[in-house]
């Protein structure tokens, strides 16, 4: 039933090739596509799904005379209503569990269910971050073991585990770099970031008090090494204002930065540090160690490469591996294995010469819930499996590249293989059709669209990352559908401008949303 329709769409096809149209329904529902009101439209102040005893009138309190008298304005639902409300909402969502989700740069791979189960063991889920350390040795061991895996996989000597996501990890790395510079007397002023970088890179550098400058790219989609060297050579190393470069590798065009080592050497020579955005580590895990390329700091998105679920936007976890020179500046707290084989948490009181930590980034020890999942993922795959992960991810991406390049503009197709993701552009689309229209067409076909309009270096960018957890059959069917849509886009099929037709909602008016923001529910005027 699901086999690729070999013929696909043809320009001569008529609109009435479509789905059978039915009469309008009273409820607005369409069989299993169900409408759902807002919580505040169905809940009641007096309804609750929790059986707690009524509040004892006149019971003594010690609330400092600050009792909350007025209504909070919350509403409740009983359990049946709650489960149904959220189940119905969930059915308006797409997820990896439903189908192919080739969102470039996001590594939407399968989330193993073992990991969900293990993270919920009371021994992990029901322990307090400030519990006496003798009562949480297993938790500390998890953090330590996971850190050890990360060091070995990256070939780096140290790791900071507390950052809460990729961007937080970037901040951790840049702060460590800044602290190292400060320890040497001067923080410097500039961080160099390529235009193709993820938005968090420049935002982080700015957040940490740096000025951001562009690194020029070459026509192959990579850093222009010569120009970068020129920039560094503007001053002597002692006067150099460049604190660090931030380079994504593999980069957001899906290409490996061939000259990474050469660039790193140049930066080091100028007294700077090399930050590597490791969001794309999935392409090389188990096959390449960033430590061998001269990296000083690199965050790893456990929610990408190590498959902790994205959860509709988070949570994530962004441990940062650090070079010898940055390790002393790692943030607090961290876990240390002691001589006797027990573990301890190093906190503020232990700051000393060896621990010149730049400080604390978050209240506790990081994303424990993600650590257990990521460790289970690593133990499951092992060194052999992780290598296979990288290889299959890269294989799938190249397969899509070579299956599409005859019909779709692939700017870097000539320059060699891509890594785990492949970048296309909308150069050849007809009429006034653009990447957005194609993306919405994919929705009707039952796919989540690829990342669109990122990176900024290609017009109408489409960044396709299949990941390694997809079967060839799935990718083949996707290619058929994708090709058919591209043909329509190139032929200027105007109907694509109305897509999606079958999703819970047609295109949404984002301009109106921003012009007059409605960010919380308000009762309708009577």
């Amino acid at each position, binding site marked *: 039933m699901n086999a690729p329709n070999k013929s696909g769409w043809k320009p001569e096809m008529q609109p009435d090739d479509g789905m059978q149209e039915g009469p309008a329904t009273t409820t607005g529902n369409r069989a299993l596509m169900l409408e759902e009101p807002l919580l505040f439209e169905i809940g009641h102040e007096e309804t609750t799904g929790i059986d707690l005893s009524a509040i004892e009138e006149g019971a003594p309190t010690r609330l400092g005379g600050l009792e909350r008298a007025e209504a909070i304005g919350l509403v409740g639902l009983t359990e049946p209503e709650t489960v149904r409300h959220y189940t119905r909402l969930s059915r308006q969502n797409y997820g990896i569990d439903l189908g192919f*989700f080739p969102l470039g740069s996001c590594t939407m791979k399968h989330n193993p269910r073992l990991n969900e189960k293990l993270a919920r063991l009371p021994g992990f889920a029901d322990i307090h971050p400030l519990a006496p350390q003798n009562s949480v040795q297993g938790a500390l061991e998890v953090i330590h073991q996971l850190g050890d895996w990360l060091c070995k996989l990256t070939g780096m000597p140290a790791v900071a585990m507390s950052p809460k996501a990729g961007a937080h990890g970037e901040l951790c790395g840049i702060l460590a770099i800044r602290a190292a510079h400060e320890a040497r007397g001067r923080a410097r002023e500039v961080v160099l970031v390529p235009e193709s970088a993820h938005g968090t890179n420049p935002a982080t550098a700015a957040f940490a008090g740096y000025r951001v400058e562009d690194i020029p790219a070459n026509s192959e989609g990579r850093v222009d090494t010569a120009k970068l060297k020129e920039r560094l050579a503007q001053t002597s190393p002692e006067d150099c204002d460049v604190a660090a470069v931030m380079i994504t590798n593999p980069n957001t065009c899906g290409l490996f930065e061939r000259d990474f080592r050469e660039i790193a050497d140049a930066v080091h020579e100028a007294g700077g540090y090399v930050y590597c955005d490791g969001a794309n580590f999935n392409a090389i895990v188990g096959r390449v160690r960033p430590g061998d390329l001269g990296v000083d700091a690199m965050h790893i998105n456990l929610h990408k490469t190590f498959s902790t679920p994205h959860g509709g936007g988070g949570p994530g976890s962004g441990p940062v591996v650090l070079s010898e020179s940055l390790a002393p500046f790692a943030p607090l707290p961290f876990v240390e294995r002691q001589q006797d084989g027990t573990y301890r948490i190093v906190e503020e009181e232990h700051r000393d010469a060896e621990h010149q930590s730049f400080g604390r980034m978050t209240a506790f020890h990081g994303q424990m819930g993600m650590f257990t999942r990521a460790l289970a993922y690593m133990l499951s795959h092992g060194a052999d499996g992780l290598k296979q992960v990288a290889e299959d991810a890269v294989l799938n991406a190249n397969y899509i590249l070579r299956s599409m390049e005859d019909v779709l503009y692939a700017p870097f197709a000539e320059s060699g293989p891509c890594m785990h993701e492949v970048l296309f552009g909308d150069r050849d689309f007809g009429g006034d059709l653009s990447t957005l229209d194609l993306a919405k067409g994919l929705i009707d076909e039952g796919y989540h669209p690829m990342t669109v309009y990122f990176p900024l270096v290609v017009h109408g960018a489409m960044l396709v990352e299949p990941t390694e957890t997809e079967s060839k059959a799935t990718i083949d069917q996707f290619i058929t559908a994708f090709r058919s849509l591209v043909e329509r886009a190139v032929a200027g099929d105007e109907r694509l401008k109305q897509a999606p037709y079958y999703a819970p909602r047609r295109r949404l008016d984002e301009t109106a949303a921003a012009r007059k923001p409605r960010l919380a529910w308000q009762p309708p005027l009577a």
Partner: protein
Amino acid sequence: MRYLPLTDTDRGDMLERIGADSIDDLFVDVPEIARLDGPIHDLPMHASEMAVERQMKALAAKNLSADGTPFFLGAGAYRHHIPASVDTVIQRGEFLTAYTPYQPEIAQGTLQMLFEFQTQVARLYGCAVANASLYDGSTACWEAVAMSTRITKRKRAVLSGALHPHYAQVVKTMAHFTGYEIADSAPAIQPEPDLNGLTARIDENTACVVVQYPDILGRISDLSTLAEAAHDKGALLVVVNTEPVALGAIRAPGDMGADIVVGEGQSIGVGLQFGGPYLGLFAVRDPKHVRQMPGRLCGETEDAEGKRGFVLTLSTREQHIRREKATSNICTNSGLCALAFSVHMTLLGEKGLRRLAAENHRLAYMAADRLAQVPGIRLLNESFFNEFTVMLEGRPAREAVRALAKRGVLGGVSLGRLYPGVEALEQALLVAVTETTTPEDIEALASELETFVKEPAR
């Protein structure tokens, strides 16, 4: 490999279409120097689900879980009963395995949930608008300080001494690099916080004053005067809350004049999890500040057929649009924890939250009374919600905590751990009590502490 669908035949066929001889051909761009010849040494090979489960269970078994243990830890992370249906909902693949809702037509589930979540948080905090979550309370606290500096164009923040020390650390760490000036101190051991002293520190260069409610010692005080004082000086009042359940019993910070209210949402729906993932809550009282907020915002709109729908909005504040000019560098947030919070809050509702808060306070009251009767123990607080401070006369609380843990009682958080080296706080023990605490637990704590306090100091 159970997670890798390609077969060797597939791989061969695909390489052929690509025109490569082997997988190595696809890694040609990796410099010689960085090529590995096989799986990384020193790491084990793949393992079955059963084997991994055994290994991880053995690690879990090394921890003393709160389940079935008399448990009194708090200080920014609270143990509450989470209804089973919360986990059912967050395990729905459509929620669990979705990405950030960048394609709203097939992400209305996440988006509507976020809109509801934002509304719940705003109301709980007495604010106009809440965002779609940040990492946790401590980073939310820093974001509030940073936002205050953007709004006021001033660079000085005054922190209450009774702000959670880890939150203060986070702010100070960041401020060091951004060049902001932070005024803070350790908390004074007294029944009521010194809001006058705090007020005195606000000056014309102050961007904001940051105060915790209830504070780190569990004390509760009216912040209205402080708000006025801050506003008089053109500064903002940032209120930090680490126990949202408290707001089912005590006044909302927004209603007392707080400009930005931030906090930790972990109490509702999320669980302890050894400190993460948690849930940073962030709200502003005045909608005019919305465009300076950090993080994602979900807003209402219509689709091409005029049906109501939801989208992420005001993204021009965010890094993916504004890059180095963004209000924050945050991208991935705490989406699934926000869902858990929202489901739990929906189950509670107004009535349930109020009852839950009352029950927490009732039991905490009982525990405080009981401990106050123990010779050698003094109750510090005049006011508290579900957490209070006791002074162990003549004995360091850190030792008490360790000794009790060995006896299977997780007796509280010592201020000695939170403020290492501050002698005045060494005897102070923070005791948190929730609806999960039984009268037997309280009795166990009282008697264990009594024994401990009686023992001669080593």
